[in-house]
């Protein structure tokens, strides 16, 4: 159904917003127009810095003090939100328009009980007295499916889990049955399984409430699942808009196409597929661009694109793209070639052997076991993917292996030498390195790139003398595709992708044998992620290095890994060849993780739900650690007995009381359609 056929709840017209910084106006939104129909969910996607949060906040008229609306209107019904009187506005907010944000932990007042925080909405917008309002709050908590709502209303926010906190936010937002609900990255920062639950909740609430929704997200998968129509923002401009199905199936702006192509999709493998990165990087905020904002990175850009800004070209009813040459977009060839050699990264011999590793924090009597008895092996030239939600102990395990933490028990053997203690010789340090999650943090901001790399060459490769170091440095920089001009800058002058290249170069300075990659791309934008993943894969193939690759993104892990290990509450619950782990039969927890992935394919299947919340590692459940949340819970045996390791025919091992044949049968029932790799768009 197109917008014109139904009533428009919100209409944004030519919105242009700038931020004042040191006397300069930096434009973040340029002539953005779109509308949301009554009861419609409109997704707004884009990378960080594209202006999507500014759009969301403009809708609520809650822009920072230094924001200047240069032109445009935000029509809510017949009135302009941007010029409405303060009284009108506070009458609308919380009543007819409501918002749910990222990071629910800080969005709730820490010193007021959550019930009262919900009740406030009823008291001020519905004129209820305290006790009626509280009763209504309890009722609303039932609607958002919180168990024991009459107890939860008396809790303070910090007593609730992230998922519960976000449910409270939804209860508060929907309490007055608003006309417009703005969701600003409502699941970002939550664990995959929690995210899936919250998204399920939103879908269910949409059947009970008929609010129009603006869903702001950087995650294309989520938006395609949740929204009917989608707008793509790039550098403050809406560059494409259309029905979600059309837009994702046949994007007509080069950026949308590139964005879809550069994401590793479920089922892609490094030895078959190569990711297609977007060249260049986002233009800096506020820079004045005469023509198309994407021209610098666009493979089909011509002189005209740099001279005049393209208008929205209509493609189909309700579908348009800001591109002069949108008809050529479907024919843009894939930029990168598939990998030349069919990778010969077959593991021969064990490089790293971790034996019953334990890492406990805290003092006796009050200990938290972050890692509770882990055995893993990594072969030479092998990539082991490590998957698990926050608090599963992945990072502690990695830090023990590289020697940043001292294990509390167990042994680590590296190339037949004992490296259990964090005190190790130069040789062990050289050969065991790490790439960190956040490149902003991992590079010393007061050193130049050259200093950072020189120090690593000196200490890891043992190269002395400035000339020799400089010679090697050029090779090192070239190997990660850094240009010489990047060497004499401080990290703050580099983009996120370039910083991560420096960090990778640093860890490769001493030709390591094993590199631990701790979420190396999760702080980067998707368009940059592909280039970094390609680089890591290239380096691994060329240098024959092994990786332990930690990520919460299963598609990424699947793409780079030969084998995958799944961690839950400090233990490995599932391990084996990548294909085997991702295919049934697998541990019920792996099953839950996989079913939590939002995909671009239309039409969902029944999602596997986990019960409750992640138990505290200081007091892990008895028997099988997963039994409190397991959807395939058997009964007393799971509560009382530690599950045995089970082996499947395809080389996977998992810890569960259910034998492989039985598990395969159960999981086949739940998932009638086998997972096929998504067709490339």
């Amino acid at each position, binding site marked *: 159904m197109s917008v014109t056929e139904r009533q428009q709840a919100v209409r944004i017209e030519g919105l242009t917003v700038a931020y004042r910084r040191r006397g300069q106006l930096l434009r973040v939104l340029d002539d953005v127009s779109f509308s949301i129909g009554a009861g419609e969910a409109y997704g707004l996607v884009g990378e960080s810095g594209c202006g999507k949060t500014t759009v969301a906040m403009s809708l609520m008229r809650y822009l920072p003090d230094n924001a200047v609306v240069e032109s445009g209107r935000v029509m809510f019904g017949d009135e302009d939100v941007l010029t409405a009187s303060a009284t009108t506005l506070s009458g609308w907010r919380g009543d007819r328009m409501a918002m749910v944000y990222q990071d629910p932990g800080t969005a709730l007042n820490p010193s007021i009980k959550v019930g009262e925080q919900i009740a406030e909405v009823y008291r001020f917008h519905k004129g209820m007295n305290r006790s009626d309002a509280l009763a209504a709050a309890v009722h609303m908590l039932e609607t958002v499916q919180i168990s024991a709502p009459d107890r939860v209303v008396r809790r303070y926010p910090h007593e609730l889990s992230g998922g519960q906190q976000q449910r409270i936010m939804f209860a508060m937002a929907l309490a007055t049955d608003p006309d417009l609900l703005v969701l600003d990255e409502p699941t970002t920062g939550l664990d995959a399984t929690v995210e899936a639950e919250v998204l399920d909740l939103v879908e269910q609430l949409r059947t009970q409430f008929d609010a129009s929704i603006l869903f702001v997200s950087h995650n294309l998968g989520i938006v395609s699942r949740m929204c009917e129509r989608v707008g793509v923002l790039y550098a403050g401009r809406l560059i494409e808009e259309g029905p979600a199905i059309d837009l994702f199936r046949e994007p007509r702006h080069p950026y949308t196409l590139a964005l879809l192509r550069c994401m590793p999709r479920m089922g892609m493998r490094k030895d078959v597929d190569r990711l297609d990165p977007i060249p260049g990087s986002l233009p800096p905020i506020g820079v004045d661009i005469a023509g198309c904002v994407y021209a610098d990175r666009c493979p089909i850009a011509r002189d005209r694109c740099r001279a005049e800004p393209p208008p929205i070209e209509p493609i189909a009813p309700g579908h348009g793209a800001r591109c002069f040459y949108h008809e050529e977009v479907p024919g843009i060839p894939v930029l990168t070639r598939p990998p030349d050699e069919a990778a010969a990264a077959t593991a021969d011999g064990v490089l790293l052997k971790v034996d019953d590793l334990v890492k406990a924090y805290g003092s006796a009597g009050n200990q938290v076991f972050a890692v509770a008895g882990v055995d893993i092996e990594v072969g030479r030239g092998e990539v082991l993917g490590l998957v698990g939600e926050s608090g599963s102990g992945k990072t502690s395990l990695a830090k023990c292996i590289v020697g940043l933490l001292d294990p509390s028990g167990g042994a680590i053997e590296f190339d037949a030498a004992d490296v259990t203690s964090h005190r190790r010789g130069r040789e062990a340090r050289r050969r065991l390195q790490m790439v960190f999650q956040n490149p902003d943090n991992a590079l*010393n901001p007061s050193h130049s790139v050259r200093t950072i790399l020189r*120090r690593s060459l000196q200490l890891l490769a043992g190269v002395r003398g400035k000339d020799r170091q400089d010679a090697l440095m050029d090779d090192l920089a070239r190997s990660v*595709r850094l240009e010489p001009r990047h060497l004499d800058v401080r990290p703050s002058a580099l983009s996120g992708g370039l910083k991560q290249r420096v960090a990778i170069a640093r860890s490769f300075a001493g030709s390591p044998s094993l590199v631990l990659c701790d979420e190396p791309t999760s702080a980067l934008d998707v368009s940059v992620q592909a*280039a970094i993943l390609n680089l890591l894969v290239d380096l691994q193939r060329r240098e024959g290095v092994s990786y332990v690759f930690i990520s919460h993104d299963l598609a990424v892990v699947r793409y780079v890994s030969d084998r995958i290990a799944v961690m839950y509450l400090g233990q490995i619950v599932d391990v084996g060849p990548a294909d085997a782990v991702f295919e049934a039969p697998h541990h019920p927890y792996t099953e839950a993780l996989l079913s939590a992935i939002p995909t671009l394919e239309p039409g969902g299947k029944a999602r596997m739900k986990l019960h409750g919340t992640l138990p505290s590692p200081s007091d892990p459940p008895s028997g099988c650690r997963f039994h409190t949340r397991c959807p395939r819970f058997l009964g007393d045996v799971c509560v009382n007995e530690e599950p045995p390791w089970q082996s499947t025919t395809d080389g996977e091992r998992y810890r569960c009381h259910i034998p492989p044949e039985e598990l395969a049968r159960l999981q086949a029932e739940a998932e009638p359609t086998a997972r096929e790799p998504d067709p490339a768009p």
Partner: protein
Amino acid sequence: MSAVDEPSVAGEFPDGAAAQVDVRRLRRQRRAELFAALRTSKTFLVGMLILIFWVVSALGWRWLVRSPQAVDTAATLASPSADHWFGTDNLGRDVFARVIAGAAPVLTVAPLATLLGLAGGTTLGLVTGYYRGWIDDIFSRIVDALLAFPLIILSVLVLASLGRSPRNVILVIGIIFTPLIARTVRSAVLVEREREYVAAARLRGERGPRIMVAEILPNITAPILVEATIRLGYAIFAAATLAFLGLGIQDPSPDWGLAIANGRAYLQIAWWMVLFPAAALATLVVGVNLVADGLRRAIEE
């Protein structure tokens, strides 16, 4: 500057030279922004003006005013006049000359004491913040215990035993400042040490002292600088108070605190003996605090 994330595979870097210039410009621009922020900060400018006035007085009083020790026996306790702008004291010394010259002792003692505290505090803060563990626990308890004493009482205790000299005042204030500055440095170090560049340095085998000095220290200069200016204000405050209590600088120094203490006896008949040194002291400490605040704001931005 345009950063290219997937450069051409051929490895040609045509625009290298242009980028070099860009980079240098960028760095200069950042420094220029800080100065611009300071230049537009009225707080900072007013504070700086006051501070410069007193620094000039402290350095050049010999050439600027008559001798602060010259005794005019004919005019003791003379009220302000064209000859003696600020009047004379009980010995017939010119109060104006003494006020201008009085900047010298305070601007010697306070900066030296601050430097001493800064050196000790930065070292202690780096060590306790970086190593944590039992050193840190002991340190925290000592600071708690120290804070239970009002600082003036601590100085009184120490100066009464060490003897009253400018050197001892510097020592006492510097030593008392050490744990206080260390606390600020420590909390900055605690934040930095959790950042991954420190882990990366450890991974490549850097030793503790080098990590503290070469990796962490350059990144915490801003809070240290702000702390130093704030402490300078306190040092002036403390040095003047000790002089007033008779525990610091002694006669015949033109020190302001001392002058006020001496003038107390003549309050009823010669208000100018106390009011002008008091005003001088007030402007100096307020000036230093304004500079500190302007600096803090500019850095935080």
